[in-house]
């Protein structure tokens, strides 16, 4: 398959690089404002993962932004999970596990619920990295067991 070795054409790669920026910004926007508007960490994370899947399809997984993301996927996933757990555990210092311990600003602003913003971003990291890792596992699995074993090394 052509896209496995070289990626798609230069036109597609340039467009994918630019749209990737927009997609990732949009994903973060969905997560950041999840406590004010529909959306949230999960939806934002899936949007980010979609962006990197697009980059993988355009660049073929060996190069480009998706490969850099792929190298950090385990760390990002762990960071998301530990942030969520850490935020929840800090609640113990003021009361109980999962207590919203951050100060709150005026309603209908970004600062109205910082606890939820941080949790949303943690979920974005977890879901974005996790779903992309799942995608890469399927691709690598397909490659390792597929009919055309020859000529294909890593991702």
């Amino acid at each position, binding site marked *: 398959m052509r896209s496995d070795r070289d990626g798609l054409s230069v036109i597609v790669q340039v467009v994918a690089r630019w749209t990737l920026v927009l997609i990732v910004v949009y994903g973060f926007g969905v997560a950041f404002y999840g406590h004010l508007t529909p959306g949230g960490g999960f939806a934002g994370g*899936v949007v980010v993962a979609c962006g990197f899947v697009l980059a993988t399809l355009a660049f073929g997984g060996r190069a480009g932004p998706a490969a850099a993301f*792929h190298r950090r996927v385990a760390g990002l996933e762990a960071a998301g999970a530990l942030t969520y757990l850490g935020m929840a555990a800090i609640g113990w210092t003021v009361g109980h596990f999962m207590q919203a311990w951050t100060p709150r600003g005026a309603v209908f602003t970004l600062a109205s*619920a910082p606890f*939820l913003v941080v949790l949303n971003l943690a979920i974005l990291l977890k879901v974005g990295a*996790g779903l992309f890792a799942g995608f890469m596992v399927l691709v690598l699995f397909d490659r390792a067991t597929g009919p055309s074993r020859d*000529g294909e090394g890593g991702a």
Partner: protein
Amino acid sequence: MDVILIGLAAFLLLGSVAALEMKNLLSAVIAVGVVGMGLSILFLLLGAPDIAITQVVVEVIVVTVMIRATTRTADEESGRPRSLATVVAGVGAVLVLVGVAVAAFAALPRFGAPRPTPSDFYLAEAQRSTGAANVVTSIVLDFRGYDTLGEATVILVSIAGALVIARHVAGDGKAGAGGAGAPSGQEAPRA
């Protein structure tokens, strides 16, 4: 409104049956995508934009991944004979699930009619006690934060499980190497 919802639900059923009956895997995946998109419209009409957004983006990524997976290994795995033990275990699991579901649904209040009391509390208290204008987020991340923690754990465990199976099936562990963060270009192409 009800007519639209029922029509959409019928459309979803048709799409599901089509996805099951298609011989071509790619067509089946497209039918699944149609079902998912219809489902997100259904959620939107029912007044659940959070779920609708999540449904749309999940559907997009699932269809992308499935197309990527099926166009390579087209109709290869389908139709393998199953062992008797597998069938018995599957039927048993379905029976247990149906039993539990019947018991659980009997205990639930009727659909939509009398709201269970926690909902009233959440609606009344969400903004004051969490500061979130989006009540859904205040429930998902604050009142029911444990649930979200569990949901995140489910994703982690499922991907770890997929990785383990992929490594096992691939034999030499090469297939799993990327998931742990060592992909592209670090091993020479075995051409």
